């Protein structure tokens, strides 16, 4: 039961790399906060500062209302799941899980009870006597989770815990992590570069770029109202189509809605495009002629890679499509589905 508060946190590494340039995030009790952003944007650094593994150069980090800047990782009562799992290779699964409890001087029978109970929930009971090298990737991941859960810490920290798993397992574990976190009600911070993981797991989503927070909010709010072109192109797959405007005009557009005066970029999501729609729907919307350059049928949907208005766009159509490379298509996006961004990339 804990809140995590970051106030204007900065990190300058020895050598002068400024990895985190002033981040403020308040994570309410029992919530799962996901930090998402491209590689090198400072997510891990921020997480490691919450863990106490890196010193905080400026600003404060509080857990449960108490500033922990000067407290080491040993006393912070947090648990972390590392990307490479960091299981102790010379210990059996049982001892891996018991290690943290033993260090805190818990009585033996209590440790045993807890380890076995946790192993039960994670379906690890039959693996307790094995060593990490005798486990599959997914099983190791579970043990790493178990090691974190068994201690019932104040805060869980995850650093890209699923990125070493194959796609199918990743999907399963994602659901499982979410359920576990709900069940246990432990405040969590989860780092990933995968926008799908970010969208599905987060209560609070933080999109980071170059050491700064680009946008913070509920995942669907961010999806619907990205605060900048960066967020727009990072959240959503395939990402939002962005076309540059020249003095309020989009060259090659068949019809263009009223455009805010300071807009420099117009954006629309592939899934918001309608192919060949006509009539009333078109009123005030954006209409383009697109030349198809590639077709990607995925099964439930197909993606059309097109050239339009001097740029490249992706259009999603449901199910299969008869469209072929070289076709010319009218593509429509309704007024309310359009996004406008200023010259600085910020939403207008």
């Amino acid at each position, binding site marked *: 039961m804990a809140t995590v508060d970051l106030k204007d946190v900065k990190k300058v590494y020895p050598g002068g790399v400024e990895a985190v340039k002033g981040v403020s995030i308040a994570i309410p009790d029992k919530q799962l906060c996901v930090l998402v952003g491209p590689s090198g944007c400072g997510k891990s650094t921020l997480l490691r500062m919450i863990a*106490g593994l890196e010193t905080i150069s400026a600003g404060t980090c509080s857990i449960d209302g108490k500033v922990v800047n000067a407290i080491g990782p040993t006393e912070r009562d947090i648990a972390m799941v590392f990307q*490479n799992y*960091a299981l*102790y*290779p*010379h210990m059996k699964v049982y001892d891996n899980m018991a290690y943290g409890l033993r260090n805190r001087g818990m009585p033996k029978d209590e440790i045993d009870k807890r380890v076995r109970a946790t192993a039960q929930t994670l379906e690890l009971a039959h693996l307790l006597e094995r060593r990490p*090298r005798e486990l599959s990737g997914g099983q190791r991941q579970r043990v790493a989770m178990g*090691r974190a859960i068994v201690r019932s810490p104040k805060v869980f920290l995850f650093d890209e815990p699923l990125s070493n798993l194959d796609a199918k397992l990743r999907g399963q574990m994602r659901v499982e992590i979410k359920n576990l976190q709900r069940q246990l009600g432990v405040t969590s911070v989860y780092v990933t570069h995968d926008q799908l993981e970010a969208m599905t797991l987060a209560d609070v989503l933080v999109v980071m770029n170059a050491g700064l927070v680009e946008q913070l909010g509920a995942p669907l709010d961010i999806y619907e109202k990205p605060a900048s072109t960066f967020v727009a192109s990072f959240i959503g797959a395939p990402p939002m189509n962005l076309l540059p405007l020249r003095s309020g005009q989009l060259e090659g557009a068949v019809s263009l809605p009223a455009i805010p005066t300071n807009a420099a970029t117009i954006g629309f999501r592939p899934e918001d495009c309608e192919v060949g729609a006509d009539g009333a729907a078109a009123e005030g919307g954006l209409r383009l002629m697109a030349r198809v350059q590639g077709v990607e049928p995925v099964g439930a949907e197909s993606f059309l890679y097109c050239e339009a208005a001097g740029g490249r766009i992706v259009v999603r159509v449901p199910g299969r499509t008869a469209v072929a490379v070289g076709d010319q298509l009218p593509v429509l996006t309704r007024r309310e589905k359009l996004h406008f961004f200023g010259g600085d990339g910020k939403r207008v």
Partner: protein
Amino acid sequence: MSPRVVFPNKILPYLLVAPQLAITLIFFYWPASQALRQSMLREDPFGLSSKFVWFANFKKVLSDPNYLNSIQVTAVFSIATAAVAMGTALLLAVMAEKVIRGRGVYRTLMIWPYAVAPAIAGMLWLFLFNPSIGSLAYGLRWLGINWDPLLDGEQAMALVVAAASWKQISYNFLFFVAGLQAIPKTLIEAAAIDGAKPTKRFWTIVFPLLAPTTFFLLVVNTVYAFFDTFGIIHAVTGGGPGKATETLVYKVYNDGFVNLILGDSAAQSVILMVIVIALTAIQFRYVEKKVHYG
């Protein structure tokens, strides 16, 4: 086992290994067989004739109280040298991990003693601890220790152990630094988060993961103490006082080259050869199936 390369040519492979075989035969098997032969011969006092006595020399050597004493001295000396050399090296390596600025310079400096020849290292220690002129001996006396390794066997032993381990510390340091670097940092971090304080982390995570390095060094250090410390002992104590620092290797030299009891000396070298083969076999077996945790 990896698939073998098959040479169609029947003679070339033998030609290619011939030089190596020749060298091994001339410089190892031939002297070794000579030693074996010599160990079964007994010479008359004038060196004019010798007769074949089978294992009499071995019997004599193994029942000689001086030889048994030498075994004991060697055991004490080897265990102490390995322990001191490895313990100190590990401590230094762990501390070197914490050095951030000038790490490279620090490590290079630590490696230098390895380049000093054993006899010179021995002389260095001899001078430092010489009861009448040594500066460190002066310090010891000032501390109230009655320092005289020329008379006191235990002090003499301490001195050769110190000199012998000093030379080996660099080598061990190098391996321990490499061993420590091979331990993933996230393991230490995970242990810290799991509530283990630094000392606890060392003994429960770092030390067990260093086991392969430690075991390898244990073998190397024992072999070193057994066989490569002749120069140091010769320079520092000459095996004395009495026979307090006369190790097996030193006794071979003493009996053979100084006292000219060739048969005994040869029997002793054969015994030593058996010991070194046994130790090397352990080492090779070990290197083959190195402990893998990963």
